[in-house]
């Protein structure tokens, strides 16, 4: 019995080895040509290809990421074409677990020289980051997402793209309701009317098509849309949460009215608005840029459009919504100096060119922070980015705030919409819970860096 099993396992193993592709060969050659005959490119952040990297000696560094490997690989291939002595190996990690492994790996000198950062992991990673070897003024001249990331005059990473919310709508259901492009709502009042028109009920009065579905989205909305009423999420010193505010109360009451007075949706109409929209059961949803990818991948048959999140009035508000940034690479300060040198040069190469900003923006519908590509044809032809481009300077980043704020916001939704508790008391309790949760936090809000903060 055992012999047969071992033999069958070994045969299976041999078949697998034969079937699988071989490992990538590492054909690095010594670079002996400093002058590549190439032009220096870039605007403020410039890249001069006419030099040797690592004195032309072969060198391999690693770039750890949780995705976007095709976008990164395109840059790596372009860089390797200039410097045949350099190899940059991408290592793809699972999203959740990367934040366990990466800090461990960065403690020694075996960690990756380059890695992708998410700003929610700022505290976890900042002590391992080397500052960019690019003058701050050059970065500021080329990118809008720099100021909020300055630490002691240095930049360790910054926002390469801005992700925020918009309203996605089902074009077929829109047409069925007799609506046209002219009916796209600009205010929350108009939005409620359109949502009512898009709602369908059966003979018993049960909703069979939600005009607007925000199940699962309350957390994202309630932390950003109150900015429209000049309501900051944090106090002036940037340390204390301002959750139990008039604006948040008013906005939550508005959402409550949508479900319980206008009956355009229901908390019991499925708990996942994405799936409901993808299956043509909900006509409008509030989603961030990543939703475009989800629609393309999982719901290719849905004909959808997108419009800017409505305002309180026709006037452009103080800020439209909150955004979060997709970050540039981190450089490992514990990596050997030769690897750091290559990493610094590669970061400069990526930032000086335009391709990376455009490709990365299109990947998850994040609006590029690079001024030079804001009006790029591909950016403006993307439905989500084209909508955001209208008022891109009116989105606020409060900083990488502690996760307790989103967690409590999820509980707020449940208490109000499922347990039917009084909105004021729930928000008041939430304020208390977040204050307790943040009592040990050193977080300071970045709201003061907002372009229109003093308007």
């Amino acid at each position, binding site marked *: *019995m055992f012999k047969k*099993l*071992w033999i*069958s*396992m*070994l045969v*299976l*193993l041999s078949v*697998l*080895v034969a*079937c*699988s*592709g071989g*490992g*990538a060969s590492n054909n690095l050659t010594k670079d002996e040509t400093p002058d590549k005959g190439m032009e220096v490119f870039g605007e403020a952040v410039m890249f001069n290809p006419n030099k040797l990297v690592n004195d032309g000696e072969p060198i391999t560094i*690693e770039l750890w990421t*949780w*995705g976007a490997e095709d976008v990164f690989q395109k840059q790596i291939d372009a860089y390797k074409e200039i410097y045949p002595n350099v190899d940059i*190996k991408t*290592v*793809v*990690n*699972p*999203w*959740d*677990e990367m934040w*366990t*492994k990466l800090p*461990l*790996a960065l403690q*020694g000198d*075996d960690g*990756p020289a380059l890695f992708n950062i*998410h700003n929610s992991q700022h505290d976890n990673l900042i002590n391992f980051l080397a500052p960019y070897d690019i003058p701050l003024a050059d970065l500021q001249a080329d990118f809008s997402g720099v100021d909020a990331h300055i630490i002691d005059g240095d930049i360790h990473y910054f926002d390469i793209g801005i992700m925020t919310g918009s309203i996605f709508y089902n074009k077929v259901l829109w047409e069925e309701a007799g609506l046209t492009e002219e009916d796209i709502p600009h205010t929350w009042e108009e939005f409620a009317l359109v949502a009512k028109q898009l709602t369908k009920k059966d003979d018993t009065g049960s909703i069979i098509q939600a005009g607007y579905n925000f199940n699962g989205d309350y957390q994202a909305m309630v932390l950003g849309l109150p900015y429209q009423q000049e309501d900051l999420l944090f106090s002036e010193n940037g340390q204390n949460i301002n959750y139990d505010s008039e604006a948040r109360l008013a906005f939550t009451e508005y959402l409550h009215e949508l479900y319980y007075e206008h009956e355009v949706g229901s908390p019991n109409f*499925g708990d996942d608005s994405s*799936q*409901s929209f*993808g*299956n043509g*059961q909900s006509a409008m949803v509030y989603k961030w840029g*990543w939703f475009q*990818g*989800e629609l393309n*991948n*999982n*719901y*290719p*048959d849905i004909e959808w459009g997108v419009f800017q999140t409505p305002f309180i009035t026709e006037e452009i508000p103080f800020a439209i919504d909150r955004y979060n940034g997709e970050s540039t690479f981190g450089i490992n300060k514990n990596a050997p100096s030769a690897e750091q040198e290559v990493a610094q040069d590669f970061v400069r190469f990526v930032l000086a060119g335009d391709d990376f900003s455009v490709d990365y923006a299109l990947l*998850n519908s994040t609006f590029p922070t690079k001024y030079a590509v804001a009006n790029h044809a591909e950016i403006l032809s993307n439905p989500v980015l084209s909508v955001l481009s209208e008022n891109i300077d009116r989105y606020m980043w409060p900083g990488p705030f502690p996760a307790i704020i989103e967690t409590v916001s999820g509980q707020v939704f449940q208490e109000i919409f499922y347990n039917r508790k009084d909105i004021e008391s729930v928000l008041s309790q939430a304020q208390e819970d977040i204050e307790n949760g943040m009592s040990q936090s050193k977080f300071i809000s970045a709201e003061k860096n907002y372009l229109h903060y003093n308007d």
Partner: protein
Amino acid sequence: MKQVKVILFNLILLAFSILTVVPFVWMLVSSFKPNSEIVKIGGSFLPDTFTIQNYINVQERFDFLRMFGNSLFVAVVVTGTVIYTSAIVGFALAKYTFKGREFIFGMILGTMMIPWAVTIIPRYDMIVNFGWLDSYIALILPSIFSGFGIFLLRQNIMTIPDDVIEAARMDGATEWYIFHRVILPMSRNAISSIAIFQFLWVWEDFLWPYLIINTQSKQLIAVGLKLFSGQYGTDYGGLFAATAISIIPVIIVYVTFQKRFIAGISGAAVKG
């Protein structure tokens, strides 16, 4: 009346087995659907559009067969080694009398009481210091002794009468011969149990191989499965196809050893 009871009992068992098996069958069937069908509300159980694209994609995206082969290699080596080391240590603890025997056995049992998560950081540090990061030796070497395996085989070998061993010795058998030709064949049930458990543990282990292995082409299948869940969503079709492939060796091992599995476990439970 007795027959009715048997039928009723079998019906209950059938209901439980359906509950257990249906999600697995659903996963298998869904691996032949496009993602749009998998996430469809009220979609049919069987695919409307049959596709093997998910299976093609998992190989193209991750070189999944290589990960599969890597896992198979590590699992086979670790399982084989653990069986041998457990048997030899279990034999010594069961059939030889020496000073400190009970203490050693107690220490071995003690290793089973320590949650593995507690040891993961020091183990990681050791592996880094040994320079074994990104190598299979770091996956295999820390796993070659198993407290559970030693316990199970010691208990099993204790049930083998001493007379059998004495008879072999009187016939001129060496200790080496007795272990390989008498003890091992008579411990098949326990070995089968250890083989199933150990193979499953190594096959499913995620965190340790994930922390140790960096090179994509050396990575194991449990880590590969996690790559289907991204920051903003999950590729369900790919995940189901990859999972369907990944359970094949587990089924082979279980089917091979299942007859002796229960006997092996119960044998360890009743002997002291």
